[in-house]
């Protein structure tokens, strides 16, 4: 060992450690760390790698269920879809990189999550993205939107994994700190499941893929601090992606698994070599001697710490199956990929780094993987309480319901995302049965079976802002509802928790409450959490002013269709179909898009959420779709019943005539009936002969069902019962123009 320098404690923050954490390192090591060790601890104990602020909360999430093949703790979760097949899925954020370098930030976000999926032994087959930007009137937001979309397209299209769905939310709170969450799904046979482990003593570790450079240095620490003007100087912390390398790595790894040449595998993601080897060793309960001289370098003169923490993209660490080492090496040569033996598994339980044969760092693997945990005090911000408790009666009813509808259709969160998804190859791999924009969730068939896999990403961040627990539960409920509306049975959740700085009591309150909300909804709907990602410090600091994003626990959910030929989409398909509103959810203007876009406020309590009613309406809709009685369904969410029906009309290219149930006891009852948002409500369209089937099924399950009207002509005609002043009568063409205009031209 080199001499241990004293005085490192004073510069603990340079390694991303507090002095208390530095003292903890000393305690765990039984001595002072040297600079290399302090740097590795700092990276692995960062929030991004170590989840030190969130882990005590995340433990409260339900992770078990009959469909779970792999829960949290691996590169991705895996659920069983039947017939011996499983789906690996996970979502991750690339928020800070995208804020300073949107194209590469988003592109490498796609690359990273794809590697997590194929590290599980699965072939990636779908990507969805959940994006949040400031108002599109802002040049910066348009720049970020264009760049992020270009980045996702450039990477996903080239690797050849379709981008099949997603969501875009727009709110000024995301102006400086956009949110870029990417979810990927992969298909595997149960027997192909791989794990991130070094296996047994004597196993050799093979580094494959791109060389290691200084790009992405300190990325994990960068992601674990507030954004500021100075973040621009962190541009070198953003990595550069090479989708061609990724595609070659993907094919080579899948072939290596198929030939049983691999005993363990992991992506080198945040904190690169350090985190991948430390985690693989920890899962096996072993130590590793890592030969840093053997690590392929892109540039000369890198220090040991730089080599360990580099976040150069497109690198994987494989544990060779003993006795198959030469075959493994030959396979990577066949794909034109560089590979190098960098480590040997030992029984000393340490991560030992060797340079020139000397040990330059020796750290207990367990200590690296068990950062201190913080349970903080949360306290709700007064400003949020005031916004939630605001009396909504002060807002007058809208003058012109048709005008209000057109305003909502043009609101970015609701508007057509077609200009976005046209940039993505959504059909490569020839599995996409339900294309982007056609339904509440994407659906992919599984070749060689009758199965379908559905996926969605959802979060109404305004709901979470105004009521974190209720809002987060809504995100889960909506995701499950979206899957149910295509006919898929929800199986599992991956969550991406995007919050501000957890040392702020207001933010910690949001985080802890949101986790409780996710827990309650996942338990009620039978959708365990199989993995996820935590992204804290999503706030922008300028002088004394801190601008935190709305708390955004994005929910990614995967479901299965036992027979993909029985599915539903949202567009009306035949004139004369009967429109029925199923479910008991009570609409409300609290936290609604109408209040936001028409009255300009984010206020009130989000709609009530009865999880039992939610489960009931979802179940009956799935049953109707599976039974063939229903091929058209859409959930009532942002913008309420009027927007739901308008989307069904616009997507189907035909009109409808309907009357909405009147709301009693409300001052602005008409607006609540038209634009009030809710949980547990789904509109279906069925041929007249099947109306009885629907009503009978609803009666059996105790789900209320109301006849709204029918598809007809080319105009959208909606009226609230007993309220002539509510009548909306607009040409579908006019609605389409408003709905489409927002994103046309917003992309550079």
């Amino acid at each position, binding site marked *: 060992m080199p001499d241990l320098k004293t005085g490192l404690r004073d510069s603990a923050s340079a390694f991303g450690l507090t002095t208390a954490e530095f003292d903890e390192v000393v305690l765990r090591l039984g001595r002072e760390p040297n600079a290399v060790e302090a740097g590795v601890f700092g990276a692995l104990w960062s929030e991004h790698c170590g989840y030190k602020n969130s882990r005590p909360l995340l433990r409260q999430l339900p992770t078990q269920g009959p469909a779970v093949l792999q829960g949290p703790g691996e590169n991705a979760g895996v659920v069983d879809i039947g017939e011996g097949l499983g789906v690996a899925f996970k979502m991750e954020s690339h928020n800070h990189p995208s804020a300073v370098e949107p194209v590469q930030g988003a592109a490498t976000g796609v690359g990273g999550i794809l590697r997590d999926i194929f590290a599980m032994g699965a072939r990636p087959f779908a990507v969805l993205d959940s994006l949040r930007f400031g108002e599109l009137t802002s040049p910066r937001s348009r720049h970020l939107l264009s760049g992020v979309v270009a980045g996702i397209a450039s990477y996903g*299209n080239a*690797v050849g994994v379709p981008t099949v769905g997603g969501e875009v939310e727009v709110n000024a709170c995301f102006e400086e700190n956009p949110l870029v969450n990417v979810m990927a799904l992969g298909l595997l046979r149960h027997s192909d499941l791989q794990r991130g482990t070094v296996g047994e003593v004597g196993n050799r570790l093979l580094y494959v893929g791109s060389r290691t450079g200084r790009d992405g240095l300190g990325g994990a620490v960068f992601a674990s601090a507030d954004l500021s003007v100075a973040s621009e100087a962190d541009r070198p912390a953003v990595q550069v992606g090479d989708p061609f390398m990724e595609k070659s790595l993907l094919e080579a790894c899948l072939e290596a698994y198929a030939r049983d040449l691999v005993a363990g595998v992991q992506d080198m993601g945040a904190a690169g070599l350090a985190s991948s080897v430390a985690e693989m060793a920890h899962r096996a309960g072993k130590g590793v001697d890592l030969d840093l001289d053997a690590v392929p370098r892109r540039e000369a003169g890198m220090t040991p710490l730089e080599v360990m923490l580099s976040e150069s993209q497109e690198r994987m660490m494989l544990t060779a199956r003993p006795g198959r080492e030469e075959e493994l090496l030959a396979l990577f040569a066949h794909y034109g990929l560089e590979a190098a033996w960098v480590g040997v598994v030992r029984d000393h339980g340490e991560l030992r780094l060797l340079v020139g044969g000397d040990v330059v760092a020796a750290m207990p693997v367990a200590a690296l993987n068990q950062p201190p945990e913080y349970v903080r005090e949360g306290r709700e911000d007064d400003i949020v309480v005031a916004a939630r408790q605001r009396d909504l009666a002060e807002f007058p009813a809208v003058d012109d319901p048709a005008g209000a509808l057109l305003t909502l259709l043009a609101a970015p969160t609701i508007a057509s995302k077609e200009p976005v998804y046209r940039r993505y190859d959504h*059909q490569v791999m*020839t599995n996409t049965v339900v294309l982007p924009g056609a339904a509440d969730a994407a659906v992919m068939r599984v070749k060689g079976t009758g199965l379908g896999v559905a996926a969605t990403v959802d979060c109404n961040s305004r709901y979470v802002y105004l009521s974190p627990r209720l809002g987060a539960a809504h995100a889960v409920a909506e995701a499950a509802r979206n899957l149910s509306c295509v006919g898929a049975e929800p199986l599992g959740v991956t969550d991406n928790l995007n919050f501000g700085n957890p040392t702020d009591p207001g933010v910690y309150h949001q985080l802890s409450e949101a986790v409780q909300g996710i827990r309650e909804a996942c338990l009620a709907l039978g959708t365990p959490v199989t993995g996820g990602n935590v992204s804290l410090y999503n706030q922008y600091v300028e002088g004394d002013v801190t601008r935190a994003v709305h708390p955004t626990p994005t929910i990614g959910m995967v479901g299965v269709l036992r027979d*993909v030929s029985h599915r539903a989409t949202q567009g009306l398909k035949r004139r004369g179909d009967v429109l029925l509103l199923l479910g008991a959810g009570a609409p409300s203007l609290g936290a609604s898009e109408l209040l936001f876009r028409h009255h300009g406020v984010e206020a009130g309590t989000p709609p009530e959420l009865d999880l039992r009613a939610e489960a009931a309406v979802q179940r009956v809709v799935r049953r109707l779709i599976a039974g063939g009685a229903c091929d058209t369904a859409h959930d009532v969410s942002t913008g309420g019943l009027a927007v739901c029906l308008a989307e069904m009309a616009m997507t189907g290219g035909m009109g409808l005539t309907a009357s909405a149930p009147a709301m009693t006891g409300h001052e602005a009852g008409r607006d609540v009936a038209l634009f009030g948002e809710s949980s547990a409500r789904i509109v279906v369209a069925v041929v007249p002969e099947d109306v009885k089937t629907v009503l009978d099924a609803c009666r059996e399950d105790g789900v209320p069902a109301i006849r709204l009207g029918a598809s007809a002509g080319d105009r959208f005609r909606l009226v609230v019962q007993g309220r002539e002043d509510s009548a909306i009568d607009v040409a579908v063409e006019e609605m389409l123009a408003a709905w489409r205009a927002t994103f046309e031209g917003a992309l550079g």
Partner: protein
Amino acid sequence: MRPTTNKGIAVVSFPGSNCDDDARHALQSVLGAPVRMVWHDETDLSGYLAVVLPGGFSFGDYLRGGALAAQSPVMAAVRDFARGGGPVLGICNGFQVLTEAGLLPGQLARNTSLGFVCRDVHLKVERSAAPFTTRTQVGTVLRLPVAHGEGAYFAADETLDRLEGEGLVAFRYCDASGAVVPEANVNGAARSIAGIVNARGNVMGMMPHPERAVEPLLGYGDGNLVLGSLLDQVMAAAA
């Protein structure tokens, strides 16, 4: 064409190809044709019934779409195969490879929108002939998906005149009624050209993806008219 031994249809995989398995699936699993995947270092394609160069991003499409793949060892074999009269179909990136390799005239330039575009297009069939379009008539309108960033066909005017004069334009972008109008020209291609054949007619390149359009479950059927035409020819020849 008289194959000495029937090896089936060769689908060539370059590093970075990502529609190779889609082509295999369409030809083999859906249409029932014998298919073998051929790695880009193969130097002999004799005995195959046809060669398909699939879509994707061969070698990352660094430099230019298809430019690096055109230098692969397999392309010499593709050239020999075409010279012997064997059918060669290049789809999307495969079309780019064929122009870069000089097997077809012209080039595929960046879309005039400058962005990648994934959507359905309509194609007007301009040539009904063996081996690629016998199941269609001149004027038949097909609906197929496109997915590309560099798909604008481009060539010198005299080349375009020759292609048109000799009936070598296979498809043009059109509207749903079959009218070749500027609004339907998805990528700004010269004279709305979506696909061409060589002078002998046995090498075709097209930007749209017929292999994505052979299954009703995915919402398409017109890919059968192209791939089915090819199979009609080669399976008859092999029989």
